[in-house]
């Protein structure tokens, strides 16, 4: 039997459950008596334990069992929620993760993990030891739908009275005439368990004169101790079942066992009666009698009225405990709900999705080809048909891309734990504020943004936020705020990591940069340029290398990671008030809305999202701009970049006029001068080979409808090229750059 797919599902599920468990634990820190959170944590542990058991992962089961026991006590209110409980539980969650990982990787647990496990088990047992076992009744009282712990070790010995079955038996008058001796059944009953107490009921006995010596008038109330199932006990009376009235009331412990079984049953769409029979709470014979009664009742007594629910009939007949019926009903509802849920969402192999996107990419290219041909042929019918086709392809593209979009919330949530742990380690009081968790972005981006974010968050906590005493001395709230946010902005996603700490120390940064030879001593740098130095390779201001950040992998790694995602990072910092880092990322990695521009015979693509406007450059203005290197755009200075020159291309610029495409990226704006504008184009991004990875200003390529290749311009890279030119040759624009700095700073204040 190949269990591999089920195993993979288990690992994924365990991962998810542990994440939920962690979130709930952290939530519990602020709201210690939140029932739902406690239940959620318990459910997670319970499910992991249960499933791990199925696969025979005993280590996981044993450890999780202790965790579950502790959680059970917490749930019953026997152990109060406090840091003393949450701490070990968080560590336990990590340890369960380690155990599951070890199984997944088919590896042995590391010595460190093993030691952690032993220590934790000790801690958990200690916590359990302080609160002696006193449950029992708690199991019925719990909310329906909450899985109960198997009661194998409890119940039986701690409540002697409730450990017994109770049989209420009234023999039919004719049993003896049918050759059945009531005593023989009781004797046999004695062979499958112990008759603890037997009371003979003789109420039905008539006056002596009317007594028929061949008739049976006796009934028995029996307390019976046995491990036998309800069906086995009923089976004892199989030959007289139709002639007697028999109620079998399960022992207390058994009821909770039924509850367990009901909850653990597979998620099949079952009738309530079937559920009860499967759990062992109801025997098939009892079910059939109940159904017959339900049918009979609706036939004769109330022909027009609604039929009584089977559950009620069974409870009334004493066949089954009301709590068990409730549990079965909850289970039934859960199954239905899950079914509905399944219909709403569907898990898909990520590879399949990638293949689909790839195909959609090909489709987009092919449809561009069709459009191209239809334009050349100038056939009206063909153009109309191709327009329809194009529109549909657009829709398909959007839909396909949206399949890859996931919310960033889950990634952000992970940082709750990080912030909590790190702030304790640092002795700082830091609150994490999350916004825009529902913002969606490409799955790959979400997966790969985790590490850079982690670095930025740690950095902000370690270097950005001051020690509590310093904050208080500066009149700031003792509790620092770290903000993680995401939002859509002009075709990209901006993720912000902001703190209300001390801001960047520009003097120190500059000093360190000079020390490390990153800039020359007499360099004149703007504040923005100084800020950006922290992204330089090998830069660190930390005087001491701390455990958290400043381990040598600096912000340059963060920058590289982000640039690999075609994103950029910007810094906004204010001394004394805090630092904000904005990561700007493309919405998707596969297909963009492009704008075609031509220089000579070559075609380039600019992402539409970055284009502000296009203006014509002709006549006097053209020659003036040529001479100054910038354009007077309604009173503002717009630095220009001649693409032909930037890429050192052959050929002359057109004689009559050129075009300027104004692009904005972050806070910078630049005009790109090109020969001609060629309109929008669905651009399927094809990465460039490794050979070209060092190219500045080009981020990829695409295939046009004509089959030609066009390079996709990397705006950030172009801006750097433009910025270099500008700094060297045009001091006037530099002054403006400083203004921009101040403007952004004032925005930040608000």
């Amino acid at each position: 039997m190949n269990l591999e797919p089920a195993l993979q599902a288990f690992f994924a599920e365990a991962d998810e459950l542990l994440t939920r468990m962690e979130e709930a634990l952290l939530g519990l820190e602020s709201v210690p008596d939140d029932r739902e959170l406690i239940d959620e944590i318990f459910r997670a542990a319970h499910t992991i334990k249960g499933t791990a058991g199925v696969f025979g992962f005993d280590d996981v089961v044993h450890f999780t069992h202790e965790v579950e026991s502790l959680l059970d006590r917490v749930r019953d209110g026997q152990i109060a929620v406090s840091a003393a409980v949450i701490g070990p539980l968080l560590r336990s969650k990590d340890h369960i993760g380690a155990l599951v990982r070890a199984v997944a990787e088919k590896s042995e647990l590391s010595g460190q993990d093993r030691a952690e496990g032993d220590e934790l088990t000790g801690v958990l047992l200690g916590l359990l030891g302080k609160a002696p076992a006193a449950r029992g009744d708690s199991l019925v009282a719990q909310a329906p739908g909450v899985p109960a712990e198997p009661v194998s070790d409890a119940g039986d010995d701690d409540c002697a009275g409730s450990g017994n079955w109770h049989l209420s038996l009234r023999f039919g008058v004719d049993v003896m005439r049918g050759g059945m001796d009531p005593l023989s059944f009781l004797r046999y009953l004695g062979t499958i368990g112990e008759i603890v107490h037997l009371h003979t009921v003789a109420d039905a006995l008539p006056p002596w004169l009317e007594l028929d010596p061949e008739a049976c008038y006796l009934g028995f109330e029996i307390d019976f101790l046995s491990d036998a199932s309800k069906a086995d006990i009923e089976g004892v009376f199989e030959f007289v079942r139709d002639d007697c009235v028999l109620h079998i009331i399960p022992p207390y412990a058994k009821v909770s066992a039924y509850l367990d079984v009901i909850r653990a049953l597979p998620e099949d769409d079952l009738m309530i009666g079937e559920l009860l029979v499967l759990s062992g709470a109801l025997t098939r014979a009892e079910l059939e009698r109940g159904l017959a009664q339900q049918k009979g009742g609706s036939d004769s007594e109330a022909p027009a009225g609604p039929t009584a629910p089977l559950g009620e009939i069974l409870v009334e007949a004493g066949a089954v405990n009301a709590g068990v019926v409730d549990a079965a009903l909850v289970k039934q509802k859960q199954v239905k709900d899950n079914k509905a849920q399944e219909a709403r969402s569907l898990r898909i192999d990520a590879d399949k999705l990638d293949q689909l996107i790839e195909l959609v990419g090909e489709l987009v290219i092919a449809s561009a080809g069709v459009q191209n041909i239809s334009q050349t042929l100038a056939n009206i019918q063909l153009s109309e048909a191709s327009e329809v086709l194009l529109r549909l392809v657009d829709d398909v593209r959007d839909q396909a891309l949206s399949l890859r979009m996931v919310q960033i919330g889950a990634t952000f949530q992970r940082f709750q734990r990080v912030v909590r742990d790190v702030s304790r380690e640092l002795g700082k009081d830091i609150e994490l504020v999350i916004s825009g968790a529902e913002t969606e972005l490409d799955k790959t981006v979400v997966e790969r943004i985790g590490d850079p974010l982690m670095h930025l968050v740690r950095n902000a906590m370690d270097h950005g936020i001051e020690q509590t005493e310093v904050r208080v001395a500066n009149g700031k709230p003792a509790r620092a705020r770290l903000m993680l946010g995401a939002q859509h902005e002009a075709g990209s996603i901006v993720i912000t990591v902001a703190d209300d700490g001390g801001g960047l120390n520009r003097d120190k940064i500059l000093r360190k940069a000079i020390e490390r030879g990153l800039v020359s001593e007499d360099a004149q740098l703007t504040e923005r340029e100084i800020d950006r130095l922290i992204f330089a390779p090998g830069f660190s201001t930390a005087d001491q290398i701390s455990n958290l950040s400043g381990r040598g992998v600096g912000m340059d790694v963060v920058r590289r990671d982000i640039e690999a995602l075609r994103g950029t990072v910007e810094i906004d910092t204010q001394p004394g008030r805090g630092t904000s880092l904005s990561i700007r990322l493309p919405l998707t990695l596969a297909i963009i809305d492009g704008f075609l521009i031509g220089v000579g015979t070559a075609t380039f693509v600019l992402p539409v999202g970055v284009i502000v406007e296009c203006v014509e450059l002709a006549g006097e203005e053209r020659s003036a701009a040529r001479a100054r290197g910038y354009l007077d755009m309604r009173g503002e200075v717009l630095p220009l970049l001649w693409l032909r020159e930037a890429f050192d291309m052959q050929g002359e610029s057109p004689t009559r006029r050129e075009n300027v495409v104004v692009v904005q990226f972050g806070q910078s704006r630049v005009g790109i001068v090109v020969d001609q504008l060629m309109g929008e184009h669905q651009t399927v991004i094809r990465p460039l080979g490794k050979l070209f990875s060092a190219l500045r200003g080009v981020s990829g390529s695409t295939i046009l409808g004509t089959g030609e290749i066009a390079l996709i311009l990397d705006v950030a890279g172009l801006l750097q090229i433009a910025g270099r030119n500008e700094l060297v040759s045009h001091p006037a624009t530099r002054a403006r750059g400083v203004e921009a700095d101040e403007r952004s700073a004032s925005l930040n204040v608000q």
Partner: protein
Amino acid sequence: MAKTILVVDDSSSLRQVVSIALKGAGYDVFEAADGKDALSKLTGQKVHLVVSDVNMPNMDGITFVKEMRKLPAYKFTPVIMLTTENQEAKKAEGQAAGAKAWMVKPFKPDQMLMAVSKLCLP
């Protein structure tokens, strides 16, 4: 003293299987090949339980039970009737005649033993 069981069936192999199982559990077992044979074996000794097939030559199981119930000593003796599945009409007839316990053939020796013990422990 061990309880005595009379096994009535026209198949000698079935009688053997049943009697081996019951003897192994500590019962004394007598065998009879049909109803007439069985009635003759009831007299002269105390039989505590009867296991009887329904379809037999000479005297069928139901007639046998009716006759047996006429004997004062066997008015309340438990009887297990052996039957094949689709004999509901026979079953009703048999129960009216005083044979409440029915077992469906084929059965395993253990099942037989369990049914017997419910009515009469060795």
